[in-house]
């Protein structure tokens, strides 16, 4: 059965930068990102995930490697 409709919320939180616990930094709406070596990477997606564990094979992007690093 269909759930009863919810009251529309005034403003739903939708941050541009999201720190994922034990994961990457999500960045919304960026046009370009400069990495630690000074190289500038064009952004073609609405959201990108920046590596925070420094173990990614394709810095500055997250490649999921953080999941196999023992915490």
């Amino acid at each position, binding site marked *: 059965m269909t759930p009863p409709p919810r009251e529309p919320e005034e403003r739903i939180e939708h941050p541009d930068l999201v720190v994922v616990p034990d*994961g990457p930094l999500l960045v919304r709406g960026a046009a370009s990102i400069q990495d630690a070596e000074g190289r500038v990477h064009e952004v073609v997606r609405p959201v990108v*995930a920046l590596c925070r564990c420094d173990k990614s*094979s*394709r810095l500055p992007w*997250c*490649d999921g490697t953080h999941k*196999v690093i023992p915490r």
Partner: protein
Amino acid sequence: MMCPKPRGVLSEWVFDLLRELPERDAWRPGAAPTADGQEDAAIALWALHELSYGGFEDVDDRAEWEPAVLAVRRDLEDELESRLRERWAAYPSRTTPSPEEVPAALEALVAEDDGPSLADLVRRTADRDQVLELLRQRSVYHLKESDPATWVVPRLPVRAKAALMELQYDEYGDGDPNRLHSHMFARGLTAVGLRPEYGAYVDDALLETLEMNNAVSLLGLHRRLRGAAMGHLAAFEMTSSLPSRKMVQGLERLELGGAMAAYYDEHVEADAIHEQLALRDICGTLAEDEPDQSEDILFGAFTALDQECRFATRMLEVWDVAS
């Protein structure tokens, strides 16, 4: 695409019916014969679902909503769904999380997954023929990649709907047809010498391949199963980045790089993002907004992992590799 080859009396009956519509006076409930086995039932259901994707050159487009066709489809779907739910019910680590526990429960489910990794074998030891066989099997889904999840969009509450669109926009190439994932896979097939057209290898599809496709179509086509569809999506995305990187390494080792490697390379980066969106912004908010979907989200995720495990186990048999 033409109707696939039948694999028994039921699929033969179904394909004959489809090809004869709309001339044939079709409405004879209960007329369908009993399937000769799982492959017969699976290819019949695969074709019935296909009517809602691209259809067949030899079948009238109106067959999709023909009552006689829907009656057979419902029986096959009920049988598939009850089998999938039985497997979930029998899973030893099965949990029934509260809505706020859903993301953590999904992460735990994925972490416990210990099915064989085909990507590992592709990276290290698989030969060229084995990899091409894997790509033929994968093509049945990858050529319509993301489409089943798109059906769920209008059925979601506000936050999950916006998040699913954010994810799907990227799956569909961010507005650039060259980056549309299913199209990238088609170009990859051509580059490795395989046929790129939609449905080209359905007649070669293993039972496990058909079942994976039937399950994701079942979840996508039914509003009732929206939670399971989103759980399936989350588990799929959460198990994609690292294996995709191994696929790239294996394809390059076998000198099958180029466009096919580019397809998997795209998934390393994209799915590292998508898994976060699917986990929290889609499944997490859906569970909060519609708490009764919580268990089905887990059921859908389990189904994705379980079906990949069964497919991988079967591929190892085909490859003659001990797991």
